[in-house]
């Protein structure tokens, strides 16, 4: 049986009140949704709250899922993305993409982003795969605008294809590619600048 058929069957059983089927759905998707929320929100507490909210919304609207309109994972990603956008608007307000030398906010002592990252005291000669480096990349990811961040998270961390991302984000595929390019380039410039300054 194909994956889509298995998921469709699980959804039908869960809508019919089968707790085991619902648990199976949660078991299959909670890790992925948590990762998306963690990379977008930046911390574990918020990611847990958001993941829980995603599943609560999913549980309430499960009967509205139509397998003919798209994959279940895309539907789940759309719910996740909408909640992330709501969360972002509530917590921080809309934020434009920060350039490297722009002053992010008045509360951060007028430091450029590259200096903020450098101030975290991460060793510059650490291996690419080291934990410190990953933390630095994760921190730099939070500095991207939400539009660019969600695009690169779905593409590079969740391995979704451009069509699925376009469906989830409700934007044309060309826009998705453009955002991914800009997001990757912005992140690289931010990290390269940091390395140069620290070294």
């Amino acid at each position, binding site marked *: 049986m194909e994956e889509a058929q298995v998921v469709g069957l699980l959804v039908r059983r869960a809508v019919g009140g089968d707790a085991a089927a619902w*648990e199976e759905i949660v078991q299959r998707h909670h890790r992925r949704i*948590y990762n998306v929320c963690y990379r977008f929100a930046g911390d574990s507490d918020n990611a847990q709250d958001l993941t829980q909210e995603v599943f*609560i919304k999913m549980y309430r609207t499960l009967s509205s899922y139509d397998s003919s309109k798209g994959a279940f994972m895309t539907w789940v990603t759309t719910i996740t993305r909408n909640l992330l956008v709501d969360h972002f608007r509530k917590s921080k307000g809309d934020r434009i993409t920060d350039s490297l030398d722009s002053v992010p906010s008045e509360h951060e002592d007028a430091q450029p982003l590259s200096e903020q990252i450098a101030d975290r005291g991460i060793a510059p000669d650490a291996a690419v795969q080291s934990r410190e480096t*990953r933390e630095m990349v994760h921190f730099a*990811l939070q500095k991207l605008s939400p539009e660019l961040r969600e695009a690169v998270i779905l593409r590079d961390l969740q391995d979704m294809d451009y069509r699925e991302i376009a469906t989830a984000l409700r934007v044309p595929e060309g826009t998705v590619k453009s955002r991914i*390019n800009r997001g*990757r380039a912005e992140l*690289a410039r931010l990290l390269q600048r940091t390395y140069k300054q620290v070294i």
Partner: protein
Amino acid sequence: MLDETKPGMECAEFEALLTDAIDNNNANADAGQLSPARRQSFDAHRRDCAVCGPLFADVQAGQQWLRSLEAVEPPPHLLHNILVATSGVLSTRLPATRRDGRTTPFAERLRERWDSFFTPVAAFVRQPRFAMSFGMIFFSFSLALNVAGVKPKDVAKLDLRPSALRHAYNDAQIKVVQYYDNIRFVYEIESKLRELKRANTPAEPGPAPQKENPKNNTSGQPEQRQDRNYSQEYNQPVLAALRGGVGNASPAVTATTNRRFV
């Protein structure tokens, strides 16, 4: 981006093909494929264009940085919390494993019950908003105690024995009754009531002769009041302790008690 015209390809076209080209570099099967001719044109533009060359390098580097991030493992209680918040059913898998015939030790069952109850509670309480609320409650409570004059060292010296508590209770009661009786307003109201009561009752044959010396009554307060405050002010026979049995002719001692009951 500037739309610089280069031989074979323009910058806008280069940017449109950028993701496909990078995915091709990574041998991504899902990515769109570039034909060899377009790839050659793309590479030529990348080498020649002062804008698109660095852009390609940045995008590629950014992708590699992002791919270095590993998937994080969600907390163990997250699945449990989601199930409780949605279906309300903790887990259907645990009973299924028990049906296999394995008996679960009592300690393990106890630990499971403990975890199922306290893990979500602990996770709930550890949230920053609740920590902030608890902090506010603590500060409010300590501020209120400070204003009320309660000091922690006084609390430490507090005697909580039953007899001490009873004694403290009696002391407090005595203070309250004394305070109440000594309020001028209460006293005046009681006097008026007594006068009204006396005025409404029929006249008695005559005032009984006072047993005590009127000179002693220097307070100027009504007798009724004194009777209440100085009760049992009459001769009371007190029998001395009998020694030698009932048959002995023990002398009866007459004593006058003048004890004040509050």
